[in-house]
Structure formats: C-alpha cells, structure tokens
C-alpha cells in the first residue's frame, strides 16, 4: 500500500502537470478559431449529457494541422529553429568543453570557486541579462565602442538584430548547461588513464582523443541535449536580440497566440513542436539510462 502510494506520487505529478495540460492544448488545436472568450469553439457542454459530448467530438478536426502544412512560414520556422538549435549547440560545445576541461584539471581547492563562477549568472534575472546583451551588442554599444577605440574597426559592426546576436545570446545563456555535465564526467576521470595511454604509446593529443573524449562522451551528449531541446522552442532570445529577420518557432507561436489571437493554430504549432522535441528527449533519456547502467 505504502509502496503503491510512493509510486503514485510521480505519476500523479506527470498526469497533473504534463498529460492534462497536453490534452487541453491538443483539444484546442483541433478546435476552430472564433471571436469570443475563450477564442475557440466548440466548448464541452456536459449539461446536455451524452449528446453534448458527441456533438463536441464531431466538431473537432485536423484543419489547423493541414493549415500548418499549407503556409510555408511554419515549416520554414521549424526548420530554422532546428538549424539555429543545432549550430548554437555546436558553438556552445566548442566554447564549453575547454572551460569544463580547465575546471576539471584545476587544483582541487579552486574547483568550488570555478563552479560558483559558472553558476553565478543564474542569480540575476534572465531577462535582465538578455537586455544587457542588447546594450553590449548594439551599434553604439560597449563592444562597438571598445573596438572603435582600439582601432580594430573603423565602422561600427551590426550585430544586434541579426542571427549573430541570437547565437551569442544562446551560447551565453546555455553555457552552464553544457559545462556542468561535461565537467562532472571529466572530474570523475582517473588521471592515471591518461598516463596509461601515454605509457602505451600515445602522444598527449592522441591520449586526449582516444581516452578523454570517449570518457567524457556521456557528459557531451547530456550537455548537447540540455542545450538543444530548450533552444528549439526558445522565444525570448530571438525576439529580443534577433530582430524581425530571425525566424524561430517560439516567436511564431507567440505571435499566433498574442498578436493573432488564433489559439487553435498556436496550439497546433505547440503540438508539432512537442512531437519534434520528443525525438531528442527520448535519445537523451536513453543516453542517461546507458550511463547509469555502465556505472553499476
């Protein structure tokens, strides 16, 4: 009995906070847009009993999903989101791996401090940090002022409101998610493995590729998924830093919902986004599971 209760807790949690909201969104995505509050129809009317339920289900259709395939905007936005997510994940990995490596090789007494420095930005509001980047990247911003002052450039660079700014913003924001899993994988690694590889004829570089990288692979995979999954649906960074030129599905979703007040289409966009995300999420879970098995 107590065991059943204990097992029930996560299931109730999942039901209340994931499945129920998901079905509400799914239901809205199958509805039609109307000028009303709430702005969709049909609505489930249980007072009419069985006939009411039948009528409700009869009115649901896949019209909104068909619409998504007809307007090129949507699949372009999806594709662009996935592309931006992939590129920024790779960029985050390139920036994050050396930092994680440096942290794991640092003297033991330094590591908590370095860890603190990685986590520290989280203590400030995310929104404020993104606004700060606007101040840095704009044409009259700190970066351009500094570069003009040093004489490296003669004309200010246009970074803000381009995809470059989006990449900078994403890499900056999601860096800790990349660093921490890689660091934890590298930190656990036995130093003598590198010496053993060298002893058996590897150069330093070979030992890195043949031992360090494979052993930190679970961390790399976890970090990549932790960055890529939320970035696909990212809304704040592209809308604040990317300007109108950056097409991302999160922005499209927001506009459908708040600008067009077309809840059913917005819901359909959200459902498709979720389906796209299911693939990397399942892969991520498999990676985590394999890692726990390997550790046993």
């Amino acid at each position, binding site marked *: 009995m107590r065991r059943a209760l204990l097992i029930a807790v996560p299931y109730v949690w999942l039901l209340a906070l994931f499945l129920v909201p998901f079905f509400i969104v799914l239901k809205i995505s199958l509805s039609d847009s109307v000028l009303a509050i709430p702005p969709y129809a049909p609505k489930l009317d249980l007072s009419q009993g069985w006939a009411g339920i039948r009528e409700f289900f009869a009115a649901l259709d896949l019209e909104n999903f068909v619409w998504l395939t007809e307007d090129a905007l949507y699949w372009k936005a999806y594709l662009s989101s996935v592309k931006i997510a992939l590129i920024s994940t790779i960029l985050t990995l390139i920036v994050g791996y050396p930092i994680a490596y440096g942290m794991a090789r640092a003297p033991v007494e330094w590591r908590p401090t370095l860890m603190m420095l990685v986590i520290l930005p989280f203590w400030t509001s995310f929104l404020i940090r993104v606004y700060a980047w606007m101040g840095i990247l704009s044409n009259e911003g700190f970066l351009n002022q500094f570069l003009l002052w040093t004489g490296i450039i003669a004309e200010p660079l246009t970074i803000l409101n381009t995809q470059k700014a989006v990449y900078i913003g994403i890499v900056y924001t999601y860096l800790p998610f990349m660093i921490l899993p890689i660091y934890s994988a590298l930190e656990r690694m036995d130093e*003598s493995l590198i010496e053993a590889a060298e002893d*058996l004829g590897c150069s330093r570089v070979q030992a890195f590729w043949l031992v360090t990288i494979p*052993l930190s692979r679970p961390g790399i995979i976890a970090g990549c998924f932790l960055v890529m999954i939320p970035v696909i649906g990212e809304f704040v960074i592209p809308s604040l830093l990317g300007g109108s030129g950056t097409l991302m599905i999160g922005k499209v979703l927001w506009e459908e919902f708040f600008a067009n007040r077309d809840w059913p289409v917005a819901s359909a966009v959200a459902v498709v986004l979720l389906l796209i995300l299911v693939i990397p999420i399942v892969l991520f879970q498999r990676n985590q599971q394999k890692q726990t098995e390997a550790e046993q």
Partner: protein
Amino acid sequence: MHLFPDSRTGAVLNSDVFAPWDDPQAKPLIQFQNVTKRFGDFTAIDTLSLDIFEREFFALLGPSGCGKTTMMRMLAGFETPTEGHILLGGQDIDPIPPNKRAVNMMFQSYALFPHLSIWENIAFGLRRDKMPKPDLEARVEEMLRLTRLEQFARRKPHQISGGQRQRVALARSLAKAPKLLLLDEPLGALDKKLRQDTQFELMDIQEKTGTTFVIVTHDQEEAMTVASRVAVMDQGKLMQVATPDKIYETPNSVYVADFIGDVNIIQGRATANGGETFQIDWAEGQAPLTATSASGISTGQTCHLAIRPEKVAISAERPADAINAVQGKVLDIAYLGNLSTYHVELPNGTIIKAQTANTRRISRRSFTWEDPVWLSWTATAAVLLAD
C-alpha cells in the same frame, strides 16, 4: 632466488644461478647514476645509484613516502631526474617522453580504459605502433592465453572481478613486449589469498616472457616472494640492495633488520674476542652475549645485535651447551596458528621475542603466561651491526 634452465643462462658464466649482479662483466639494463629528484624543497630521491640487470625481478621496498614510486615514475618517464641520469641499455633516457620508451607500466589502479573491451584494452598499445592486423590479433590472443583471460575478451572492465582486472592490466602492459615492465603495487587491491596465488603467477609469467620486472611494494613478504633482488629504501636513499635471503639473514643496518620481518634488537658494547667472535656487554648484571661478525668492529664500539625470533630457542631449563642464554618470564603469547611468538620479559625489563612452530596441539603447549623460561641462541644466530 630464481633458477633458470641452462639454455637461458647465457649471460651468467659458469653458474646455474641467476646472479648477474655478482658478475663484473654483466652489463646492467638500467643504471641510475647519482639521481636526485626534488619536488620544491622536498627531496624525494637523494643522489642514488643503482644497477638493475636484464631478466631480473627487482623489488623496490619501503614505507610510503620513501621515494620508491618516484623511482618508478622516473623509469616510466612521468618524472625526470633533477640531477643525474638514468640509462636504459646504455642510453640516457631522460629526454625521451613516456610514449617513446620501451618501458611499460602496470598501474596501481590498473588504469584500464573503461570504454574499451578487455580485448581492445590489450590491443591499445599495439594499435599505437600500427602493428599489422594479423600480427596484432595473434599477439592479443597470446596475451589472453598467457593471463588465462580468453573467455573474458569481449567484456568491459567493469564486468570482471578485481583479480581478472589485475591480469588484464598485466596483459596490456606486456603486450608491447617491453624491455622493462614496471609494476606499481600490483597486488595491493587483491585480498590476501588471491595475492599469494597471483605472486606465483607473476613469477611464472616473468620467467616465461623473460622480461625485466621492477616492482614497487610496501609489502615485505611480497617483495621477498617474487623478487630476485630487493632494494630497501628509506627517505630517498637505498638502505640495502641484495637477494631476499641476504636481506633477511644479513641486514646491513638496524633499519633494514627492523623493516624486514620480526627482529629483536639488543644494544651493547662490543669486545673483540679473537677471530670474528665478539663479546657484547648489553646490560648490568647480565652475562655478555657472543656473536660473530665478518665486518670489522673495534673494541668498545657501540653496536646492535639483531636476532630473528625464530632463531631463539625457548626451554624450561638452561640448555647445557648454549652459548647465549638468558632467563625471563613469559609476558605474552601471540598465537598465529602454525607458529607461536612468545614475548619474554627479562629481569631488567627487556622484552625478547622467541618463535616456535606449533608442532603439538595447543592444549599440550609447554609454556604459558608468567612461566619462567630460558631463551638461547647460537653465536651465529645474531647479526652484529655497527652503530
């Protein structure tokens, strides 16, 4: 001591006994030449010179922090001497990085690559040498056979036992057929029974492959069992380098005598008594003890007498023909199953240990606590050590 069949003793002239260190013509494989290693202010190795010969099973023995691991890491190439040189086959190896040395090491933690199978672990070093595939496969199979790991080849290191992992580490370090194999506390992680079996296995593999082994250990029993020669180290210096029996029977210092096995140390003043015989006055009211020593000890010199407990006989009456005999009473008995060690307190408070084999049932033991007993030993039983 290792006995080799005639065909394998080419380097050793006129002898079945493997003892190149006694042969002035023999060329050492490894030479430490006045090697000093300092870490900051700490001197780990202090102007140390040592020759190790081909096919030796050489043990570096000492307490932790004595510098034995530093010696090994210098041989592997992970550390370079601050002063002096290390020669391998006559060549100065100081500037050669670890990956270019014909030296392999078996790590204390085994350092098996967890992401590779046993087979791939053993093949790792061979692949770095770009060995052709058929040769590589044959070599790996040979190593698997040598270490009896054939049926575990496909497993990952975390899927096998500690003893098997130890053998994988050995197979991997032997695969490249190094001139010199370094073993860092190779049996430290195994339980006692498995350790004893593995010791003989190690000796067996060493003889089969003819590789020179240098083993680092803090376990004197292990060093005595496996090694052809043992170097006892303390604070970065070699205290004595000799065969296990010489280390045990004729230690050159109180430190070595005390470090290896159990020993009674008696301090006294020597008086030459003709030939190699000496009288040692050691306590008020006690008859002087007699001991022999080949090394020159001058009359009046302070010296130490080291007597192994198993060379001290214990009896109820004073043995008629005993040269050295003292009386005392049994203070403690350490029962080890096959042996018993009696701690006998002499009237002046000195405690002397005597060990006897338990050839009779414990219920029929001759002596018990508080019994007055006589301890006796011959003139040659004790080692006389100058201070």
